[in-house]
């Protein structure tokens, strides 16, 4: 183990949570490394000072009287408020069923209306792009091509031509200029 590795495992070494082998390696490293031994002692001293310091700062604090009462009251008021809302809504439906139905319908229409408006806005945007010549168009054009297959027959080489159908991939740029054709191989 080197100093860098020990430094990385310093806290775990103090916690005693390293594997037995690693713990032994760290202990062995400490025996001949003054710097790491110093770092360990420093951390222990810092730890003691911090413990003392924080305990002093928080000493004498105790939970204020009546905490239990306040906690129970808070639980009661929370459950009451949820129940009260449910009861109020139920009473409202019973007393004004027409108004409740109208509100519900209004809410549903609002949701549908928003969705529909969003979709039509998207469609308008696409249409507008097409009109302005900003639409990108991609077409696949079938092209008959020929390929040569060479076979050896005795001392001569025979060339046979095989017809092949491949697709050329063409596109239009935003300005309407045609992009160069690029062939895309297809399976025979």
């Amino acid at each position, binding site marked *: 183990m080197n100093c860098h590795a020990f430094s990385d495992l310093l806290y775990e070494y103090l916690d005693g*949570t390293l594997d037995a082998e690693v713990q032994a390696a760290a202990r062995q490293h400490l025996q001949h490394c003054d*710097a790491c031994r110093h770092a360990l002692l420093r951390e222990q001293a810092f*730890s003691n000072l*911090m413990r003392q310091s924080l*305990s002093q700062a928080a*000493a004498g604090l105790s*939970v204020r009287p009546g905490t239990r009462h306040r906690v129970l009251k808070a639980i009661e008021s929370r459950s009451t408020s949820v129940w009260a809302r449910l009861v109020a809504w139920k009473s409202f439906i019973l007393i004004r069923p027409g108004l409740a139905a109208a509100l519900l319908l209004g809410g549903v229409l609002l949701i549908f209306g928003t969705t529909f408006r969003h979709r039509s806005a998207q469609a308008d945007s696409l249409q507008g792009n097409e009109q302005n010549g900003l639409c990108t168009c991609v077409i696949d054009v079938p092209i008959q091509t020929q390929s040569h297959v060479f076979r050896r027959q005795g001392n001569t080489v025979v060339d046979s031509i095989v017809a092949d159908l491949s697709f050329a991939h063409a596109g239009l740029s935003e300005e309407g200029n045609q992009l160069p054709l690029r062939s895309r191989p297809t399976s025979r």
Partner: protein
Amino acid sequence: MAEAQRACEPGKPASIDLQVLIDSHGDRLLRSAFLLCGDRTEAQDLVQETFLQALISVHRFRGESAVYTWLHGILLNLSHRHFRKQRHLLFEEERILKEPSIPTSPDQADQSFYANGLAVAVQKLSPEHREVIVLRYYGNLKIEEIAEQTGVSKGTVKSRLHYAVRCLEKLIPREMNLFVTGGTH
């Protein structure tokens, strides 16, 4: 844990069991809350809310950890909300790191003086760094336990601890022989 579970059973006198929970863990939680948030009133409110949340969510506690650890986990979550409200505040870590170490005057070179100063200095750290310092040095938690409580990796805990210690080191004079040069920190 039995006392806490009885506390929320319907028809049972919850007050008695809750009081047992408060008596057993309340003060320790409060001190931790105070060190985390730095304000006594705020700490009392945090502890009260911790017990409230504990009673509401007691059915989720499976007894895999100690009751205090469970309660402290709730307290930490609540303190995170408190910290989020403090996001607009500027913490002084960067400034502390840039400043030279505190010079010592002979009459101040006693440990208790700097111990008090250190507790104040902890409040100048950012919430994440303060949290690991409090959990490590006040809660005596191991790196693994801090990682579990805070929901971050062990590497992150060590990195935060390392940075926070570097900040606090600046506030302790060399004459105390704690931070003389030559360590791996």
